[in-house]
Each structure stands twice: as structure tokens, then as C-alpha cells.
């Protein structure tokens, strides 16, 4: 188990190194840099002033030097300064992480709390009206683009309740935060919920047809014990994989929800930083998201071992 974890941690480090090189190179391949964009926003270019900015920001240094400066700083906890805000990158990123984490956490909680039980119910009551209804709802949820759903939710709130659940200032308490995030979280979590529900259903249907489930029933176990203790635990492996993927997606892919609900999280911030070619900001944000993704993958792999003893024994 320890050896397996160490091996995975080693792979994580190699992956992160690859990500760091890829994002560094890709950012510089994209046409234009911060100097171009600063002058774009001002509407004109004075070549001398532009060259001065390029020099001030160290963009005229060789790429290898720029890369080693960045990685060296990163390893020492110095993420550099944002080209746009002229503030330390860490000061800009840190306040936004809890915002996205809360939104992603609530969305994930909503998705798991609704997706898994409904998936089980749908499988257990296969081909009943309830199963049909849940399948239709899940298909609809998968088909609805989140920006469209988000706007519909906002319009409904304005028309029916006369209020708008968007972010306009930092909530003072945890209760206020949950209230503020619950609508966008449900809106973005609906798609994940539908995905988890459909996967749980198909996985459960497969497991429920297994011989050991029949054996459990023949032993006289209650239907609840058969479903939840024997079937669901074995059906959870693919569901855990999807939950892991969705967690990673939710951390980096909330751009639409953050835009529609005006939430100042890291996804929206990343897109703006890319449009400004704010290299220090983009590089460090992408590295942060990459760390979250590989960490979640590691946790998912470790969770497999906890859920399925066969994997534990093999490793």
C-alpha cells in the first residue's frame, strides 16, 4: 500500500513537470503578449514604451531563463507578480480558491446526494414509471447547457421571487455562503447528478444480476441489505471514477457558472488572465488546477483499494 502510494506520488511529480512545461510553452506560442494587450486596451502603440514594458517584465529573457525563474520561485513559494494587477499572484489566487472550492464542493455534494440514490432507485425499480421518469429527467439534465439553465434559474428567481441569487459581496457567515452558493451549485451539479445517476443505475443493474446477489437473497437477507451492502458497494467502482473526474472538472471548468452567477472564482479569473496573457497568473493557476486534478486521481485510486479488497490485495 505504501509502495503503491509512493509510486503514484512519483508519477504525480512527473505529470506536474509535464504540465508546467506544456503550459509555459503553449502560453508563449499563442500570438501576442501582455505588452500587446496593454497597448490594445489603450488603443495605440508606441514601440519604445512597449519595448520598455517587455524589458521590465523580463519577457526579453531567453525562455529557459524565464522557465527556471518561474519554477525556482514556485518551489520557494514565490509565485511572482501579476502583470495586470501588479500585486503578488498568491494574493490574487488565495482569496478565490475558497470561493471555487465551496461552489465545487456544494455542486459535488448535490450531485452525489441526488445521483447515487436516484440511480439505485431507478435500477431497483427497473422499467417502472419511476424508472422512466428518472431516466427522462436525467437525460434532460444532461442535454441542457449549463449557461442556459443558469440563466433560466436566474430569470425564474427574478420573476417569481423578485430577487437574484448572484454573488455581489463576500458572505459573512457559513450559512450565508451556503445560501448564496446553493442555487449555482444545484444548477451546475444537475448535469453531474444526471451522469452519476445513469452510471449508478447501469452499474447496479449489472451487479444485481450477479450470482452472489442471488445467493445473498437465497440466504434470506432483506432487500435493503442485498441492495446497499452487497450490490451498491460493488457497483460503486465506476461511480467513484466518475465522481473523481467530475471533481476535477468542477475545479477548473466552472467558467460558465461563475460567469452567469457572477462568482469571482478561479475559473473565471483564469479565462480573464489568459485573455491578458498574464503569464505568472495563468501558469500558477493552471498548476494549481493540475495539482487538484492529480490529487483527486490519487484519492480515487486509493478509494478503489478501500472499496474493493481485490485491488488492495493485488497491489
Amino acid at each position, binding site marked *: 500500500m505504501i509502495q503503491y502510494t509512493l509510486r503514484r506520488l512519483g508519477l504525480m511529480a512527473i505529470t506536474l513537470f509535464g504540465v508546467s512545461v506544456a503550459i509555459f510553452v503553449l502560453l508563449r506560442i499563442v*500570438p501576442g503578449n501582455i505588452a500587446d494587450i496593454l497597448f490594445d*486596451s*489603450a*488603443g495605440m*502603440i*508606441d514601440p519604445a514604451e512597449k519595448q520598455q514594458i517587455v524589458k521590465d517584465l523580463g519577457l526579453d529573457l531567453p525562455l529557459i531563463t524565464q522557465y527556471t525563474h518561474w519554477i525556482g520561485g514556485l518551489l520557494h513559494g514565490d509565485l511572482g507578480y501579476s502583470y495586470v494587477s501588479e500585486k503578488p499572484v498568491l494574493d490574487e489566487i488565495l482569496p478565490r480558491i475558497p470561493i471555487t472550492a465551496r461552489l465545487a464542493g456544494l455542486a459535488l455534494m448535490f450531485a452525489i446526494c441526488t445521483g447515487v440514490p436516484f440511480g439505485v432507485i431507478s435500477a431497483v425499480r427497473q422499467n417502472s414509471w419511476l424508472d422512466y421518469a428518472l431516466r427522462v429527467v436525467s437525460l434532460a439534465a444532461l442535454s441542457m447547457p449549463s449557461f442556459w439553465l443558469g*440563466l433560466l434559474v436566474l430569470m425564474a428567481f427574478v420573476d417569481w421571487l423578485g430577487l437574484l441569487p448572484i454573488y455581489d459581496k463576500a458572505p459573512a457567515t457559513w450559512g450565508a455562503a451556503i445560501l448564496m452558493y446553493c442555487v449555482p451549485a444545484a444548477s451546475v451539479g444537475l448535469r453531474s447528478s444526471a451522469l452519476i445517476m445513469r452510471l449508478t443505475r447501469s452499474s447496479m443493474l449489472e451487479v444485481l444480476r450477479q450470482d452472489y446477489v442471488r445467493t445473498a437473497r437465497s440466504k434470506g437477507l432483506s432487500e435493503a441489505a442485498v441492495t446497499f451492502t452487497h450490490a451498491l458497494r460493488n457497483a460503486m467502482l465506476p461511480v467513484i471514477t466518475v465522481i473523481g473526474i467530475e471533481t476535477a472538472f468542477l475545479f477548473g471548468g466552472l467558467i460558465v457558472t461563475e460567469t452567469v452567477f457572477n462568482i469571482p472564482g478561479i475559473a473565471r479569473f483564469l479565462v480573464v488572465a489568459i485573455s491578458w496573457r498574464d503569464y505568472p497568473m495563468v501558469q500558477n493557476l493552471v498548476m494549481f488546477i493540475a495539482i487538484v486534478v492529480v490529487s483527486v486521481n490519487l484519492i480515487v485510486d486509493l478509494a478503489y483499494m478501500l472499496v474493493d479488497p481485490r485491488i488492495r490485495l493485488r497491489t
Partner: protein
Amino acid sequence: MKRSGFLLAVVCLLGLGHAALAQKQGSTLRVTHRDNPPSASILEEATISTDMPFMAVFNNLVVFDPASPVNRLDKVVPDLATSWAWSDNDRTLTFKLHQGVKWHDGKPFTSADVKCTWDMLTGKVQGKLRKNPRKTWWFNIKDVATDGDDTVIFHLYDPQPSIMAMFAGGFSPVYPCHVPANEMRTHPIGTGPFKFESFKQNESIRLVRNPDYWKPGKPYLDAIEYTIIPNRSTMVLAMAAGKFDLSFTADLTPELTKSLMEQVPTMQCVMQPTGTQGNLLVNRERPPFDNAQIRKAMVLSIDRKAFSDILSQGVFQVGGANMPPPEGFWGWSKEYMETVPGYGADVEKSREQGRAIMKSLGYGPDHMLQLKVTTRNIPDYRDAAVILIDHLKSVYIQAELEPLDSSVWYARLIRKDFSVAMNIQGTGIDDPDVQFFENFLCDSQRNYTSYCNADLEKEFHRQSQMKDIDARRKLVWDIDKTLQEDGARPVVFHAQAGTCWWPRVHGINIARNTIYNHWRFEDVWLDQ
């Protein structure tokens, strides 16, 4: 009779007193913001995204009368300057300054700050500003001198009445000498009615009341909070739900303004020119566009009314380089415009002339001129470019759209790396000096089409020195006509957009001919 007159005077005074008392102190004005400003430094930016939220931090030497709906030379009133006087055949401009004014950090404001600001703007002091987008505005300033703490003297090369308009514009605040430029980009210090409190990137901007403001009793608001909402649909819903008091200026398209007024009938909305115009850029150095006849045929293909109808349901206006009336002061009258080629009501007749030109050059329905229309890859630009491509077909020109990322758009224009482009550009002040010197001087950085007409340039300078406004306007019309006839940068439309606020907001006075002014908020108060 005397007695009734006295009574009337008393009633009037009581009425005035009541009106003054009606202004409530306190409350926070909540305003939407369309995007993240590139910085907080007005002098270094050329966008309303910076100008509107940070204007209330500063004062100018002079301003356009905040109570007047138009920004015009005859509406300039004192701000940090108490008075001004012209001398030396209108080549010297002397400002007397307010005494006792303090910067937000407690340091005194003096004439040295004014000198320092314009030394930076004219480029006499290098390295203070990272960007200086309006350097061309101040080409006529020879030097700036001080006479004690309360007098500042501008020496000009030539008389220039319009320089007062530039001093009064929202982009010309006075900066403190003692604060470094990089600090002004992140934490601006001014003398204005509101102090800077915070600027959270992509989130919000907050200004708070300056209790030591040098205009007694003002401002009325405790604070102004801008929330950055890039998504227009969310912004409109937030306005309708009453979450905000005022929308960002000119952030609502004509359709959205109409929709918001239908949703909330009590909403106060004003449509105003945005100061931006759509224009056609033709690179006259690149064959075959070095042929004036081809450029003329292209201009004749444009149906300006169609642009307005499609892009804005007929709200956008048609005109030359200067903003058209009634909002604009220097634009052509309707009658005059009819005399300009390509501006006549009969578009088909113009296109027939265009086709004849193209045929004489060997082009026709079976042999169309192939070209690329380059534009910036954002909706306002793209939509206009697509309509242009459609219009060009009418004169045997087959065009393909080349959308460019914003980061390379201006660089390509500066390098003249385009044949034909659809451009949208803004002008800070409704003034011919700003328009002509920024865009049409032979050596101007913004002269993207390399148009150069030495004789016309002399006329730019001649109009700039004229004091008789009516005579100057006549000359400006003629210059503008020549520019359009020469296809220097054919203007296709002048954009308009809406600003809305709830009836609880009082003291808002939107300027009819600019979006870049009247955002000091010192007279604004909330009735709640």
C-alpha cells in the same frame, strides 16, 4: 405689486431651500461594471472601464458644466482652477488655482502637481507613465510654468481654443506629483469627492466619501460600489431585480435598454452616443488599393442605413468623422451630408456608380476582386464586418472574413499588415482637434490607413486656431467632407447605447455627447 413680488421671492427661496434639504446624505450607490479595468490610472488608459469608476477620485483643472447636458467649449466651468485667462495673442493660458485643497493622503495640492501632470503627458518627463495614449492631445503645449503655489501657466505654440475641452475631459485629471505612477495604477490618490478603498480584480471597485472634500457639503453618498458583471444577461436581470442602482454607462444595447424599460416601467434610461464609430480601413499602400478608384467604389457600396437598422434597429447614426447632430456639435447637418458622395439617400444609384468604376478597371460579376476583410474577433466588430462583406458584393468584390484575436489586432493595424479592415474606435471628446490630430495627421500613430494630405493638414491647424465657432464649424464640415471623399477612413456608423438607473437615484445628469464625463458623482444622492 411690490408685496406680491416679495412673496414670490420668499416662496422661491423656500422652494430652493426645500430642494437643498431634499438631498439626503448617506447610502452606497451600487453600480454595475462591464469588465475588469486594465488599471486604475485614468491617464494611462483609453477605456471607459477605467474612466467611469475612477473619475470620482480626481478633479480636473476645469470641467464641462455637470448640470449641462452637452459637453461644449462654451460650457467649461472651473474645478481645481478658480479662473483662467488668455494672453500673448492666445498663446499663454494662466490658471489660478484653489487654495487649501488636499490630496487624499493629506498632502497639499499645488501648482507643482499641475505642472508635473502635464510634463508627464507631453513626454517631457520620461518613464513616469507606462502608457501615454493621449500624448497627441497636448502637441501644442510648449511648456508649463508655475508662479507660486496657486498659479500655473501653459505656454502654447499656437492659439488653440479646443485645449480647454481637453482640459475639461474625463481623461485629464490632475495627478499628485509625490505618488509614483505604479501606485496610481493600483491605489490612486486624488483630490476628488471619493477616496479609493479597494479594487478586487474581476470582482469589485469601492470608493468611499472623502470627508475633507474641498467643496463643502459634498459629496452626498457614503460610498460607491462597482460590481464587475461581464455577462450582460446577468447584468440586466440584476438591474431589473433592483440589486443595483445604476448600470455601467452605455453598457446596454438599444434592444436591451428597451427590454429593461419594459420589465421595469419606472426605470430611467437614456440612449447616448458612445463616442465610438465604425469605419472602413483600406490600406492605400497595398495594391490594388493604392488605386483611388477602387477605394471610391468600395465607399459607394456602403449602405449606412442598413448597418444602423441591422445592428441597432435604426438607433445608430450616420455621419462623417465628427459626431453627428443633434448630440454632436461638430458633425454635418443633414442637408450638408446629402452633398457628400456615398451619403445620398439613393444607395442603389451610388452602387451603380461603384459598379461602373469597377467595370472600367476590368472587374465584373464573372471576375470579382478577391480580398480579406480583417477585423477584431469580438461581436461588435465581427457583425459589422459581415455586413460590410455583403455590401462589397454589390460592386464586384468578393471578400472573406479574417477575424483576429484582440492581442494581435492593434499590432497588425500599426504594422499596416492588412488590406481592408472593419474597425471600431472611440474618441474621448466631441471635438475636431481630437478627431483630426489623433487619426488623420500624416505621422499619427493612429493613422492606420497612412492617409496623408499636407494641404488638409494645414486646414486641421487652421480650424484649431479659430475662435469663431460658427466659422470653425463650417471649415470642420468641409475638412470632414474631403476626408470622406478621399476615402481616408470612411465612417460607417456612430454607435449609441443605453444607461439606466432606478428612480431612487437623484442628481445623475448624463451628457448627451459623451460617455466619458459627468461621473464625479458629487451631486448624486439616493432617496432610500
